[in-house]
């Protein structure tokens, strides 16, 4: 499946992973803040 991936497909995937991880953690922090607001 990955044999015909060019170098830029791998580069884009690696940087996308970074964006997804940072974005995902931000969403997680936001959900904690929201829960605090609801509980408080």
């Amino acid at each position, binding site marked *: 499946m990955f044999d015909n991936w060019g170098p830029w497909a*791998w580069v884009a995937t*690696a940087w996308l992973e970074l964006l997804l991880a940072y974005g995902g953690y931000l969403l997680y*922090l936001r959900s904690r803040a929201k829960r605090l607001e609801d509980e408080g």
Partner: protein
Amino acid sequence: MNDVRQSLRRPGWLNALGLVTLALFALGAYLALVRSPPDVNQGDLIRIMYAHVSAAWVCFLAVILAAIFGMLYLWRGRSIDDVRAVAHAESALLFAGLTIIGGMTYSRPTLNTFWTWDAKLTLTALLFALLVGYFVVRGLVDDSERRGRVSAVVSIIVLASLPFNWMAAEWFRTLHPAKSFDVSAAGVTDMAEPIFRWILLFNVLVAGLVYTWFVLERTRLGRLEANIVERREAPRGRREAVDV
């Protein structure tokens, strides 16, 4: 209710730091994806190195700081140290996951395999598993003091695995390349072209800033959570005292 809303509002300086970090992240990505020349051996795949190595270094830093705050909690018993340890441990888990996934993405096109159970990769998987264990342990212990102490011990165990991981490529036979960048007593000895080194260092700085922002925000929320729990438990404590 209004009190909680007000204290939940993020301070201006933290918002400003977030914006600066975002701008620097965009600049780091531009340097890595546009300005960096292709490598003689790896070609454009070298651009993955900037994301992968910076995540790995920040992961190591987060593990060290989580253990330091764990030790401080064991020593002083102040709940803020536990809150800080958790904030660093969460980031350590995030960056450890990124290091593994990024490493697999880098490894497939350069070494023709996603994964191999050699020393470096196995130790990184162990690091990730220990960090998951840190949070499993926290979820299993109800008493907050005991939870803080037990998880502090786990964070020290995670720290103990770090030197082996750091030196694995030198000490053991592994597919993982040896460090391409070495900071020795004689100064910075790099085995790569200077432009690769500077773009890497810039991206390490950006990942460090992202990590700092995450930890500051997570600590802020953790303190508020601890305050709410304390406030909720205080009347119960008084009720129990009255019952006795």
